[in-house]
């Protein structure tokens, strides 16, 4: 597809929405807006795979795409900024089935996808350069990833075995997606011989739409993550460690929503008629499972540092011993929080 992948994506959404939502709903869906309405739409109209898969989409781009569809009589306006596919449009969409990113699962992966890719591309670059006996500048700047990859590689016994396993797995997984998706993916990787290409550079080389290239890439990436989670790709499963989206308990989820609205623990306890300690349990669960959950509102930075230092110095996770070592200044809740955050970061 040389041009107009935006129109293709939009056409797919329009078919599912069936004139019941405006372009704004498509915009929120593709950009990954976490409002109750958008999340509901995802499920109701079976568009969850596309949730958050085009983060920098603009209303302008969508309106332009809609205009193209209308001009080619593939869609027709029904209300203001609301369109439905025409018969012709449905046929056209069916003919384009080969361009459909069948493995894309934005609902599940849009948040963790960048981290997974960082790990994979940095490990690829590192192993490639080690094999070629070369020094290199890491293709990733994110310190979390740098540290994770370093520990991962140190924890691996034989480098040769890992290289072989990774290579075999990449070949096997990429063979399952389209030739074009495999090509895009291979070109995005950085090796000792070539710095990875940007989606735009690949698009220019393949003479394809940039958005199409991005979705081919995402398609391959999400396929790898899904195979990892299904237990059919062991190296990828290792790279997924700690990234697989966890299901929070329903009650913790509720507490999370209140916290995001700015409520304190006491207020939530009162609102929900639950014990304060129950809400605290939820907060600990959130700290352990939600990667960008900040515990700063619940424990002062200096105290957190002290707790962490004590845990390390004692080599223990026993709350009582840590509390005693700190002269009783930290509450059990604070200690649990700090440890939970740690676990969230390193253990899984």
């Amino acid at each position: 597809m040389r041009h107009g992948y935006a129109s293709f994506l939009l056409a797919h959404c329009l078919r599912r929405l069936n004139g019941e939502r405006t372009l704004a709903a498509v915009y929120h869906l593709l950009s990954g807006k976490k409002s109750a309405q958008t999340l509901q739409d995802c499920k109701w109209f079976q568009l969850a795979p596309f949730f958050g898969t085009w983060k920098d989409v603009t209303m302008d781009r969508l309106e332009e795409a809609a205009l193209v569809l209308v001009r080619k009589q593939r869609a027709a306006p029904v209300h203001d900024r609301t369109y439905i596919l025409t018969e012709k449009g449905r046929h056209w969409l069916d003919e384009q089935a080969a361009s459909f990113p069948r493995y894309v699962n934005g609902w599940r992966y849009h948040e963790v996808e960048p981290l997974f890719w960082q790990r994979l591309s940095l490990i690829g670059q590192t192993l490639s350069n080690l094999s070629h006996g070369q020094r290199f500048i890491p293709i990733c700047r994110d310190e979390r990833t740098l540290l994770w990859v370093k520990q991962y590689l140190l924890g691996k016994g034989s480098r040769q075995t890992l290289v072989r396993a990774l290579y075999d797995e990449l070949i096997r997984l990429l063979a399952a997606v389209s030739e074009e998706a495999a090509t895009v993916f291979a070109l995005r990787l950085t090796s000792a011989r070539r710095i990875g290409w940007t989606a735009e550079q690949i698009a220019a080389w393949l003479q394809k739409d940039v958005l199409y290239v991005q979705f081919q890439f995402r398609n391959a990436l999400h396929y790898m993550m899904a195979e990892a989670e299904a237990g059919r790709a062991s190296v990828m499963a290792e790279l997924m460690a700690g990234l697989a989206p966890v299901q929070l308990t329903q009650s913790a989820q509720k507490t999370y929503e209140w916290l995001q609205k700015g409520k304190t623990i006491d207020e939530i306890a009162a609102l929900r008629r639950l014990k304060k300690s129950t809400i605290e349990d939820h907060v600990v669960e959130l700290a352990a499972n939600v990667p960008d959950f900040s515990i700063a509102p619940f424990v002062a930075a200096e105290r957190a540092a002290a707790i962490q230092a004590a845990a390390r110095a004692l080599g223990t996770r026993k709350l009582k011993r840590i509390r005693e070592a700190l002269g009783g200044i930290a509450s059990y809740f604070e200690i649990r929080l700090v440890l939970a955050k740690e676990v969230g970061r390193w253990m899984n």
Partner: protein
Amino acid sequence: MDELTKTLHERFGHASFRPGQRDVIEDVLSGRDVLAMLPTGSGKSLCYQLPAYFLPGSVLIVSPLVSLMEDQVEQLRRRGEKRVVAFHSLLDAEEKWQALASLPDFRFIYASPEMLQSETFLAALRRARVSLFVVDEAHCISQWGYDFRPDFLKLGAVRHALGSPPCLALTATATPEVQEDIIRTLGMERTRRHIYSVDRPNIALAVEHCLSVEDKAARLAECAKRLRGPGIVYFSSRQWAEEMARRLAQNGAGRVAYYHAGMDGEQRLLVQQQFLYDELDIVCCTSAFGMGVDKGNVRFVLHFHMPAQLEAYVQEIGRAGRDGAPSLAVLFYADGDRAIAQAVAEAELPDSAALREWCRRLPEDAVGGGWRAMVDAGGFTDIQKRLLAYFLEWGQTAAPEQLTAAAKERLYERMAAAIEARRRWKRKKLREMEEWVHASSCRRAAIVRAFGEELSDKPDACCDNCGLETDCFMADGRRPEPAPVRPWREELWHMFFGGRRRDEAAK
């Protein structure tokens, strides 16, 4: 071999110092406050990195750009230095409790000015005993510098709060008035100044006067095609950088990519590294590209748009020829470019009607911290907000407790006057740049004069006004074909089992 040279060799792998480095390092080690102006590419960072191995406590480095910090950290780690840490933001600090708790263990502590506003962070720094307070790109301190960053102004107070450790201010471009500003703001005393010429004898200078924007684009495309690369082309807008990148590639200028701050982090890093590894011939970019790109063999720097100040121009062309080999800088100029440069330069200045309206809407009891939030809610752009916060802090020193209508009006007038002064100063800098473009005498002499120097030696390839033969900068013969792209299975096989080195493989 003395201790310094030995350490230089063991830690940094260099046999000898580059001009200026040793003098600066010796003064730093003797505990003096030092202002060092060294040309870009002369190894400024060594001036604090080497002393770090002789000083008892940590070295704190304040840097304006996250990417700059990351580059430095990465370079140090590559040399085997483990005791290095960087803090860019408060969120970051939360991630790094452990590092914060053990701050004294680090030899190098990099921090953004924003971080230094945090009491927690300052307390940790005090425990760490900072032996040397380094301000990188120190010209950012001065509102008369070409890249003013208001949050640098607080560094003087920060240094004081840390017990006034010896200070090293580093910059590549600071006019005498900016140098004075740096010294005053940082509270430096009995300062040793090491001012090296801004002149880069191996960079030949030229200006091409064009008839129109279209003529400019055509001539730049022709020039980019014929010149020996790699090279950088600067634009004042993202759209132009993207547009011309496509055009140059179509026009046979080789492998061309664009770079600007609107791209995501990974894209930017990929393009930067492709350029570094000679996988690109030309990068078309905005001023966002360059700081921290340590590439020796850049053969030309072209400007499609004129920067708003000579200092900015000098900084940008300074990315050519760091290896000392002959390089070329050409500025393409057409009528109307002055207006573009002015618009870019003055975009940071808030509109006076909007400012007046904003002042009027201030609540009567808006004092202290509340003002910050008001700045955020004013509908200004980020860069305007930064400047406004600065002017506000300065303007409110005269404001009374109760903001009556009259007091608001006075506040507005004070701020408007400050903004107007800044506008006049910017226009003056722009005039200076424009005069340089239209000059008929030696361009090199004019540059060093702007920095309060005299030109002592003129290279053979000096500038168009002195007579410049450009043939030696042209590519000889055809550009080598880029490495072919193999089918993906082969690409992957070569990635892991290719075994041959990159340079051999290229043959």
